[in-house]
């Protein structure tokens, strides 16, 4: 019981501590490719700390939804964080939900953010909310198919179980369907974390912004919560990628302290690798037009479908 509690709290701390760093590293990598110096990798921490000290300016049109939404979204994302194996499998709370529950918790977070975007009555907010839900609707089928492909391979949607099984398989886990599902989920991760070519996280131009448009009315403490929530979500999406497809090195719960520390180091390396890969993708592609995004996401849909079909072909039946 105590060890479970400790590991839960430890996981919360790790998630909160790592997610701004991941953001910083992605920004730094992008700056490197754009031959800029770029902000320090610790800049996101300073940003959040600064925002937490500031007052919020609040629109006079808003209702309680606007105040509650950032916190509810944040809570949903953090709850999802406890269902995802980070560096140990056999999460103490892993029984409470599986991959599908994680997807729906993210949906809950998105729902409230989008709801708040409409609350201030600005036309930007509505635009952002509408686009966000549009992208979400495109992501969802591909996401579900790749979940199916993964679950089919392992026989479960329970994330701890998936990580455990795949890491137990060793290098044999690298099968065509895993690769195809990974490609599909990588594209989905781009969309879920709001990166180029789907969304541009560093723009405030009304033609291109999605996530930024939604949170345009937020400031001060609430903005800090929103930003932190977005960073945590990014970390979690990357963790999903890492621990579903490359869970090697993850520690089981009975493992000793040395293994756990090692697993933590491996995890951090994996996450940063994915972050850097994401930054490379971001710098090497252009932002797509909103109505070309269905094409991108149908590519992802097809890859996850191919993953399923190739599983069926290879395994026969």
């Amino acid at each position: 019981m105590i060890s479970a509690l400790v590991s839960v709290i430890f996981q919360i701390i790790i998630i909160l501590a790592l997610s701004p760093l991941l953001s910083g590293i992605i920004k730094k990598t992008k700056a490197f490719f754009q031959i800029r110096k770029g902000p320090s990798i610790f800049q996101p921490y300073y940003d959040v700390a600064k925002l937490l000290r500031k007052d919020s300016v609040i629109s006079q049109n808003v209702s309680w939804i606007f105040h509650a939404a950032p916190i509810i979204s944040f809570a949903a994302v953090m709850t999802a964080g406890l269902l995802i194996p980070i560096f140990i499998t056999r999460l103490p709370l892993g029984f409470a939900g599986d991959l599908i529950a994680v997807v729906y918790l993210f949906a809950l977070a998105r729902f409230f953010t989008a709801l708040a975007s409409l609350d201030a009555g600005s036309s930007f907010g509505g635009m952002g909310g509408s686009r966000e839900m549009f992208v979400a609707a495109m992501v969802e089928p591909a996401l579900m198919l790749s979940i199916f492909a993964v679950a089919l391979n392992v026989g479960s949607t329970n994330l701890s179980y998936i990580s455990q099984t795949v890491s137990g398989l060793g290098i044999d886990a690298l099968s065509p369907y895993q690769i195809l599902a990974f490609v599909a989920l990588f594209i989905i991760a781009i969309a879920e974390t709001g990166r180029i070519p789907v969304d541009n996280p560093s723009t405030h131009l009304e033609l291109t912004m999605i996530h930024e448009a939604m949170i345009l009315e937020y400031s001060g403490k609430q903005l800090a919560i929103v930003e932190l929530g977005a960073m945590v979500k990014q970390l979690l999406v990357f963790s999903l990628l890492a621990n579903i497809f490359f869970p090697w090195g993850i520690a089981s719960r009975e493992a000793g302290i040395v293994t756990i520390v090692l697993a933590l180091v491996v995890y951090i390396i994996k996450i940063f690798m994915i972050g850097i890969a994401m930054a490379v993708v971001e710098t090497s592609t252009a932002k797509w037009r909103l109505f070309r995004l269905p094409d991108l996401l149908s590519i992802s849909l097809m890859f996850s479908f191919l993953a399923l079909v190739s599983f069926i072909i290879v395994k026969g039946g």
Partner: protein
Amino acid sequence: MAEIIFGSNTMQLLIALILVSTFMILGSTRLYSCIRDFGIQSFLLACVAGTVAFSTGKDEIYIIAVLTILFKSIVIPYFLLYIIREIKVKKEVELYVKISPSLIIGGMLVVISYYLIRSINVISELSSFALSASVSLVSIGLFIMISRKKAIMQMLGILIMENGLFLGAISLTNGMPLLVELGIFFDVLIAVLIMGILIFRINKTFESIDTDLLKTLIG
């Protein structure tokens, strides 16, 4: 023998990547990236050949693999890029069927190929992945020829079909006799050259390589 090779993990990965590259061609709207993806596909095919050579120990398949890399992933893509540069064509693939429906049709073709291969009972279970991939490559190549306007894409389509046939042949026979392979290579190369010249002619006549314009020839 074939079962062991084509059931192996490496082989399946390579075939899956070949399918990925095919869908990249199907899903992209830029001529450059289509040609680049074709080059990657051919390279992966050469890797397949190399793996077969490695596990069967037949040395002549190495030659085929090297030739594949040389011609299909270097010479032909380069030649296609040269054509594009020379005739200063717009760099977009023009489509009759939009990207999303194309992809869905491609996915359906893969499923159909799988059922087709499965209905032919003689083939062992394990090489069926390679064979379904080869049939899907052939059918997707044909589909690309039907659904794209630019003459270059027709060429690319036929090359993808040829790659599919190559994959099918190598997975059925563990490599055909060297002479046959060389003959095919020669054929493909000549075909590409002739088509390239044809594209130049089309471009000269119509000042475009949009095959839609060929409709005006019916008089």
